[in-house]
């Protein structure tokens, strides 16, 4: 935990510097404007477009340093903790569930929401939750069917279908 605390503070500090640098960006069509021209108070106009994000990012940077100081002085609970940041269970959980979510996202991009929902539910309920196949399939299929009618038909929110699109054309013929 102690090591994670300082690494996170360091990453957040870098993030703050990046945000400060990015806030000062000049419009790409106008080469006459220099970086950081927009972060001050423009005379007679008030703050420029980069003022708000730049100075708030600067406060973020100060906070990151402050967190670092607290870490050095062992003033905050995580910097005193000798516990592991993520133990074996936590790492496994993150891999299985977090990885599952990214798998879900990639599947959505390829085969669309409905097939992906089916796959993710089977993966989670059956293989992580160890429920029976009967429970798994009834919940998963029920969810897919209900979602289709709720979103695509009733709410007219068309979820992306990806490769599975041809399967849905006949359904539109019937229900729309």
């Amino acid at each position, binding site marked *: 935990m102690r090591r*994670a605390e300082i690494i996170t503070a360091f990453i957040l500090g870098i993030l703050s510097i990046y*945000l400060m640098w990015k806030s000062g960006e000049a419009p790409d069509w106008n080469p006459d404007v220099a970086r950081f021209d927009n972060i001050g108070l*423009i005379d007679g106009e008030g703050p420029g477009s980069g003022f708000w994000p730049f100075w*708030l990012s600067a406060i973020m940077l100060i906070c990151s340093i402050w967190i670092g100081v*607290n870490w050095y002085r062992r003033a905050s609970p995580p910097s005193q903790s000798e516990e592991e940041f993520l133990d074996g269970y936590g790492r496994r959980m993150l891999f299985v569930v977090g990885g599952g*979510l990214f798998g879900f996202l990639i599947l959505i991009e390829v085969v669309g929401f409905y097939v992906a929902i089916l796959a993710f539910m089977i993966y989670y309920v059956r293989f992580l939750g160890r*429920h029976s196949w009967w429970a798994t399939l009834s919940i998963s299929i029920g969810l897919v069917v209900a979602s289709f009618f709720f979103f695509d038909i009733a709410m007219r929110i068309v979820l992306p279908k990806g490769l599975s699109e041809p399967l849905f054309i006949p359904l539109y013929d019937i229900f729309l």
Partner: protein
Amino acid sequence: MDILASLFNGILVALEPINLGLAIVGVIVGLFVGAMPGLGSVNGVAILLPFTFVIQGFTGGATSPMIFLAAIYYGAMYGGAISSITLGIPGASTAVATTFDGRPLALAGKAHLALVAAALASFAGGTVSNVMFTAFAPLLATVALSFGDPEVFALMLLAFATFVGLGGDDIPKTIFSICIGLVLATVGFDVVSGEPRLIFFDITGFSHGIRFLVLAIGVYGIGEMLWTINTSRYGSSMSNVDVSARAIIDAIKDFRHAWRGTVIGSLLGFFVGILPAAGATPGSLMAYGVAKLTSRNPGEYGKGSIDGVAAPEAANNSASTGAMLPMMTLGIPGSPTTAVLLAGMVIWGLQPGPLLFTNQPDFVWPLIGSFYISNVIAVLINLAFIPVFLWMLRMPFTILAPLIFVLSLVGTFAAYQDMFDVWLMVIVGIAAFFLRLLDYPVAPAVLAIVLGPIAEPKLRQSLLFSDGDFMIFLNRPIAGPITVIALILIFLPLIKLIRDKMRQSA
């Protein structure tokens, strides 16, 4: 007495079978749409807008279609609390503050108390604002008109002040969280300079900004779920809830302990709601903040205080009714939902404006009458459905968790129809999980992303107005006092906190 007679006639029209039926259907639709994470009143109203033409064709007039949409709006405001409490995901920005205490109550097996309190507080808030709306509508329209940019900015400062106290014990982490929310709020297109800004790595998805729902669903739907799975070690962390009718009735009796939050929420919500550009979200946040500030035991807040559920819920309902006022009398929508309602009114051939009350009494009074009716319908239906929502919590966690994940992803997509948002939401969620492990408070960031996009342009528009002179926030009759109070409130707890810390470490 004139008003009472008009109101009475209005209620009679609203009670006609067709209007009553539409109100019931509208409330039910709204309740469920609002309870879905990601979907809120705006989706319900926008999607059913074309359908109102069918109603109009059937009944003539704009009254029945508007009653239908207003009922959806009402239902959704009640429904928003449901996902905040049971799933821990605020379905809309208006319901964020409800999670602060609603979620801890649910985790402690007292979800029924929170749900009942939310329903009854919503009812109280709706009723209070209906009465004020009826009595003072034209007068309040003038108040709303007198709010220019500096006044709105001062109000935003006040909203910030009330939630400074919401963070954790770690000062730098709390400030960091507020600031990152405010910075991320500026991503996208800058209205004042007309230029895109902070478009990270030139990805087009950032050009619409980082949306509140992306952050909220990521933090609460993904981050919080991962954290729960990690700490509960596969076992269910939810205590079993009592779903008997008896428990519900006891909860209703228990509600009397929440009167303070309800009163604060109802009044504050309404006044914030009528100001154009503010809307229900700052209203509910300020109500929570004020309820906590004035409470005798503020330590209870965030750990499961009934007052902490009642205050924001009373406020968001009260503010939603209040927000109808600038929409109808000034033609300015204070929220995306009222924007769609406004579009509806225009399409049905009505002209919102100061003369609406005089020119269209046949439209206005039945609509106001229907607010009262819908409010009653909504609280009854909500109470009736509470056992169904509670039953959901008894599902095994290994089924509930994937359902919440699926709902988070589908809900994020449904809100804006953009896959980029869905990816960003998951990434935000995983980052929030790590930050949560290290005691970074994330709620301030979520709130900052709601208030930032209102506050920053108002600050700059005000200063454009005053040629860059900051005194504009102090030397105007309305903005001045608000700014002073806000600054005192912001710095008071900060100074106190730092002093306490120093004493502790000394």
